[in-house]
């Protein structure tokens, strides 16, 4: 059936689409917001990055072997970790070690569970499934992770009096930092909960719309979306949990002293 195929997009069509960017630049210029150059530059960057990633994916798909797929996932994790690290203002001590190990365990575990048990496609490394699914899981978990780490750092700073009072009353590091950890954990889960609550009403999720566009039955696309939302929630919850489990200790010495 004709509808089962996506309409191909040639350069001419892309050019028409890019016309909308040029229109935006024109409007920006009209209002003299001084961001025209940046808008133009960022749009070119977007085009370049996507073309590059498309080419890379083409190579990875063509290779039909697990190694390039895994390398791609490692690179994605590395980049998102680096972005999270530079975005956070006050990093916790040993940030990369704590967040990196939590992401690897949290996202790795959830991705394996999801791909092998829930979706159950073969071969396990099939990039058509593994890359987008792992990508969504890692991307969302990284957001939760940076929120958890950032909020923990702020709470440890703001609750200094409370924590030292508890220490003076005989609390250990875990007990004294419990309110801070609790606040950070809740902060890390809020965006995921908001997304779940708004899904289907405020916004149609990207993966579902993508699948529908490429010809998947809406009923199937919806099921995929439900499943990936569950995976994302699990990944965010596990990763943030692991970060906070290791994270609060970084603020204390072995003698349960609040550092710095």
């Amino acid at each position, binding site marked *: 059936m004709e509808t089962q195929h996506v309409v191909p997009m040639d350069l001419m069509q892309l050019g028409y689409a890019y016309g909308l960017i040029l229109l935006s630049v024109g409007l920006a210029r009209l209002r003299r917001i001084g961001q025209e150059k940046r808008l133009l530059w960022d749009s070119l960057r977007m085009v370049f990055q996507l073309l590059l990633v498309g080419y890379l994916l083409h190579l990875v798909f063509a290779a039909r072997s697990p190694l390039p797929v895994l390398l791609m996932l490692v690179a994605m994790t590395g980049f998102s970790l680096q972005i999270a690290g530079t975005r956070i203002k006050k990093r916790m001590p040993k940030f990369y070690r704590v967040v990196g190990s939590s992401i690897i365990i949290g996202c790795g575990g959830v991705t394996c569970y999801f791909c092998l048990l829930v979706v159950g496609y073969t071969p396990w490394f099939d990039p058509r499934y593994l890359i987008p699914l792992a990508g969504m899981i890692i991307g969302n978990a990284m957001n939760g992770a940076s929120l958890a780490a950032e909020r923990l750092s702020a709470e440890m700073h703001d609750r200094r009096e*409370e924590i030292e009072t508890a220490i003076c009353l005989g*609390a250990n590091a875990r007990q004294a930092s419990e309110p801070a950890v609790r606040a950070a954990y809740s902060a890390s889960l809020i965006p995921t909960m908001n997304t779940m609550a708004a899904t289907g009403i405020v916004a149609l999720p990207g993966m579902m719309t993508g699948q529908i566009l490429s010809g998947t039955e809406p009923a199937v696309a919806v099921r995929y979306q439900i499943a990936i939302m569950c995976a994302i929630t699990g990944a965010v919850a596990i990763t943030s949990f692991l970060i906070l489990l290791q994270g609060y200790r970084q603020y204390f010495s072995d003698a349960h002293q*609040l550092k710095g």
Partner: protein
Amino acid sequence: MPFHPPDRSQVMLTVDGVRAVRRSPEGNDVTLLDGISFIACRARATVIIGPSGSGKSTLIRLLNRLDDPSAGSIFLDGRSILELDPLELRRRVAMVLQKPFMFEGTVLANLQRPFLYRTTEPPAADSPEVARAAELARLSSAMLARDARSLSGGEQQRVNLARALIGRPEVLLLDEPTSALDRPTTDQLAATLNDVCRAERLAIVMVTHDLRLAEHTADHLIYLEQGKIAEEGVGAEMLARPESAAFRQFLAGPAASKE
């Protein structure tokens, strides 16, 4: 006139040659305390007085291991505090911090708080432990049910004191306990501390810049300036006849609040 312990067996806390060096944000080593040695005895109040920046708060934080010194030793009843479990040490050496932090909930919940950190069951409102701590800190039983965060500064400081005393510590540390209190409240706290010190045979170590509080409580007075002990002696005598020029200047200066 140096301070002499009533008897060696009464010595509870011994501070020996303590030095504290901290790295400044610019990367330089700054000496905050240098060569500090003194003793604190049972049923006596040792008051450390000095201008702000003299290292008083740095010093008192070392005594329950909120921080550790760079050099020197501290002994609790003859044992180095480094050998003790830090949690056990902080139960034996209680501390009242400058700003009374009240946990959410009632005064009673605040008094029960230290027990939540142990495996022991928190004492009930009508238990002898709660009654004893409330009495020592002069908290009325009606106050136990009130929301701790709605209390006045003076009331909160008394809850703070009762909370520190409920676990029957051997040493009580106080860091500027009256900095947020007015004069009548300060006088009340001084009287309370004197009673507690004698009744419980507590060794009190208090840091303050409040001369009036020092005058009313100190058995043993230590004047700290620029991280060193500039003068030390029996409280009343030392205040009446300061020996060092530094201490005389402090007594006369605006830094010493006589309010």
